[in-house]
């Protein structure tokens, strides 16, 4: 049963990533694209965690944590670039 649940969750997150990709390609404003990228990062973290459950390895959590940190910093940097025209003033 757990295998089916993990497969279902993987399919849902993959579909969510595709929807985000559509918004990233389409999104009329730059802020829309930043939001789509941020959501993609969060969905990718969930995919990494699910891969860790499926292959029964605890090594994936470090990857997920790194992904979370890099995603947050990149989102804030992009927003600051839009706001101030520069990342570090």
């Amino acid at each position: 049963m757990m295998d089916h649940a993990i497969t279902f969750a993987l399919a849902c997150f993959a579909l969510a990533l595709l929807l985000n990709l559509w918004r990233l390609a389409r999104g009329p404003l730059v802020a829309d694209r930043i939001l789509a990228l941020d959501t993609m990062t969060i969905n990718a973290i969930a995919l990494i965690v699910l891969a860790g459950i499926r292959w029964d390895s605890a090594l994936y959590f470090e990857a997920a944590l790194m992904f979370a940190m890099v995603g947050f910093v990149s989102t804030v940097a992009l927003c600051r670039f839009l706001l101030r025209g520069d990342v570090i003033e």
Partner: protein
Amino acid sequence: MNVAAEILISLLLVAGALFALVGSFGLVKLPDLMARLHAPTKATTLGVGGCLLGSMGYFLLTDGRASIHELGITLFLFLTAPITANMIAKAWLHQQVNPDLPPTGTAAGWATFGPTGRPAGEEPRTPPSPGL
């Protein structure tokens, strides 16, 4: 493995995945950025939270050790999601809203805009076109 625990973990995973899917669907479906901001920042955080809780339960059951990594990731995501949402909303305000605001009456100006109510050194912009 305990059947009840397995059912609980499966439920957490499925609920988390559905939340994330609904959030991403809202990102595609909703009409403008302020509405779109609402869907993924809440639903996806819940979705990832469900997956991480399920993962924590799984490793607790199979290995018998409580892993703290998931709690770290959950805490980090829950702390950073409002910050990113705020930054994106500010970027949108800065680009789209006509900053023709009244003076605040204090030394501090409006958030993201200069003390005069508009970005420093810029003329007031035209209101956003309805197509955006």
